[in-house]
């Protein structure tokens, strides 16, 4: 029976491609599926593009491909990556430039058509409300502040690019799992209405889209995380998918980490809402019928996914400017570490008030006590800390207040409570972004999707 092996690439913009080497060199993969775009990454890329129109893509694809392509090409390993962000053509140009300098050759495809930021009026005229799918709010409230708006495309344009002979496929926004489902559709010849097989493919893609999180990384637990061996050389997950849809999840031999029922089910449910209706552009997956057969030695066989017909709409996520954040921090040692932080927080609040600043929100967190656990921190530990850091943040529409807030902190060093260190008193204001999830009819998006292949030599 025919099968294809896909290895995970990155799980986010900034992730490491070092573990991908082992998947290529000893993992026997045919494809690397690399996810560079978290929900808010397009906002970062939009800022890049505002400064430089040739930017707007995930820049890490250039050094990643320059380093890995010489290993991948002789083995016939292909790459599918959404590193194109807001500018897939720009990404290809940058990769092509780097390849030519090194004498590397490849057929590189670009998928476009996901961006709808300049089509808002037209889509509304076609009857799309673009209302927020979570809150029901009308888009008018944020219309003037939109920074990007992109639809999650499915696997079809990726499969099309591979059919045209591409070695490397660079897309903008696609469903994360489509990066794997595209190669599966191309290789295994499944029909686009074979919902159960598509559901198996979606399961695999979802398991691979967060790199090390399926192979022992971030294994959320008390104690058991420490049983994961060799984080330093943790292997990224690899899936071997057969024509009948069954999948074997594993990783390259000799690498660290763990592929097991436990590590895989944590990733399976990660960032899923209703597990009986996990939507993608290509199929709706019911995870309730999946069967995980843990064979030991980092091998788990997965079967049983149930698929339902793909939706008639595609999800769009837009981002909009939503004010500014100012941040300041100062730390104190024993004795009275927490109390000194609390006293300092009140001093800072007093300074804000005396200046007549009226931020919309002031957020106070005590690093070392409750900055991560919040209200679920154990209060019994509060008054017996070796050290504690005050972290304060403000929300405001006035950028100058956000900038000025950080500069209130240095004064505390000589004129506040004693034994201070770890000052952050000159931080830049950070732009805050609201995310706007909505739905658009797919027949209004898909006719604009295009694939073009260029030979770089």
């Amino acid at each position, binding site marked *: 029976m025919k099968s294809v092996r896909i290895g995970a690439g990155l799980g986010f913009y900034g992730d490491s491609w070092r573990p991908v080497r082992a998947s290529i060199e000893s993992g026997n993969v045919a494809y690397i599926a690399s996810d560079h775009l978290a*929900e*808010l990454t397009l*906002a970062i890329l939009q800022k890049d593009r505002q400064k430089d129109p040739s930017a707007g893509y995930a820049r890490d694809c250039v050094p990643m491909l320059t380093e890995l392509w010489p290993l991948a090409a002789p083995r016939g390993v292909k790459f599918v990556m959404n590193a194109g962000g807001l500018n897939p053509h720009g990404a290809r140009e940058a990769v092509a430039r780097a390849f030519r300098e090194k004498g590397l050759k490849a057929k590189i495809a670009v998928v476009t058509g996901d961006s709808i930021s300049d089509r808002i009026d037209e889509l509304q005229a076609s009857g799309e409300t673009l209302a927020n799918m*979570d809150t029901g709010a009308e888009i008018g409230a944020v219309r003037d502040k939109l920074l990007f708006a992109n639809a999650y495309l499915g696997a079809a344009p990726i499969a099309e690019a591979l059919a045209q002979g591409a070695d490397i496929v660079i897309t903008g926004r696609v469903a994360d799992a489509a990066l794997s489902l595209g190669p599966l559709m191309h290789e295994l010849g499944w029909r686009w209405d074979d919902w159960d097989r598509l559901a198996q493919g979606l399961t695999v893609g979802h398991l691979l889209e967060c790199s090390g*999180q399926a192979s022992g990384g*971030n*294994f*959320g*637990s*008390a104690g*058991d995380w420490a049983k994961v061996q060799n984080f330093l050389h943790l292997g990224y997950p690899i899936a071997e998918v057969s024509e009948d849809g069954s999948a074997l999840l594993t990783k390259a031999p000799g690498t660290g980490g763990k592929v097991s029922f*436990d590590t895989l*089910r*944590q*990733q*399976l*449910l*990660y*960032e*899923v*809402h*209703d*597990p*009986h209706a996990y939507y993608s552009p290509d199929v709706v997956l019911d*995870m*309730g*019928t*999946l*069967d*995980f057969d843990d064979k030991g030695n980092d091998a788990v066989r997965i079967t*049983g996914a149930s698929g339902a017909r793909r939706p008639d709409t595609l999800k769009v*996520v837009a*981002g909009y400017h*939503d*004010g500014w*954040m100012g941040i300041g921090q100062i730390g104190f040692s024993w004795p009275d570490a927490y109390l000194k932080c609390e006293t300092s927080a009140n001093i800072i609040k007093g300074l804000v008030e005396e200046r007549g600043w009226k931020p919309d*929100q002031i*957020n106070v*967190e005590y*690093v070392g006590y409750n*900055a*991560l*656990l*919040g*209200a*679920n921190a*154990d209060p019994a530990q509060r008054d017996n800390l070796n050290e504690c850091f005050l*972290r304060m*943040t*403000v*929300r405001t529409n006035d950028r100058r207040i956000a900038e000025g807030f950080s500069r209130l902190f240095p004064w505390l060093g000589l004129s506040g409570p004693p034994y201070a260190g770890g000052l952050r008193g000159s931080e830049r204001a950070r732009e*805050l*972004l*609201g*995310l706007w*999830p909505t739905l658009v009819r797919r027949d209004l998006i898909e006719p604009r999707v295009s694939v073009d292949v260029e030979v770089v030599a």
Partner: protein
Amino acid sequence: MKVGLWKIAHARSGDKADRSDIGLFAYDAPTYQVLKREVTRERVAQHFAATCKGPVEIYPLDNLLALKIVLNAALEGGAARSLRMDNLGKTVAAALLRMEIEAPADLPRLARA
């Protein structure tokens, strides 16, 4: 007896816009039955009362010995506009593991310890 979830289960959390989601996993089938009974929407809502401003949803998955827990309106509007240090809610799962439930003392993970 009262048992902290961290002794009998593992968990990971993530985010989608303003929604924080947690996968809670029993290590064994008897514990899963206890989780299904004891980890209710009401208990979870109470545990996260300070941060979760919307309804709590729970989806049990017998095949995975898991509960999918969704906290709506729990991330200050979403990671990109949140002021919190843990703007993505990656530690929400750890906070859940601190919750105590009523459980029999002979659960496999407890008996072994």
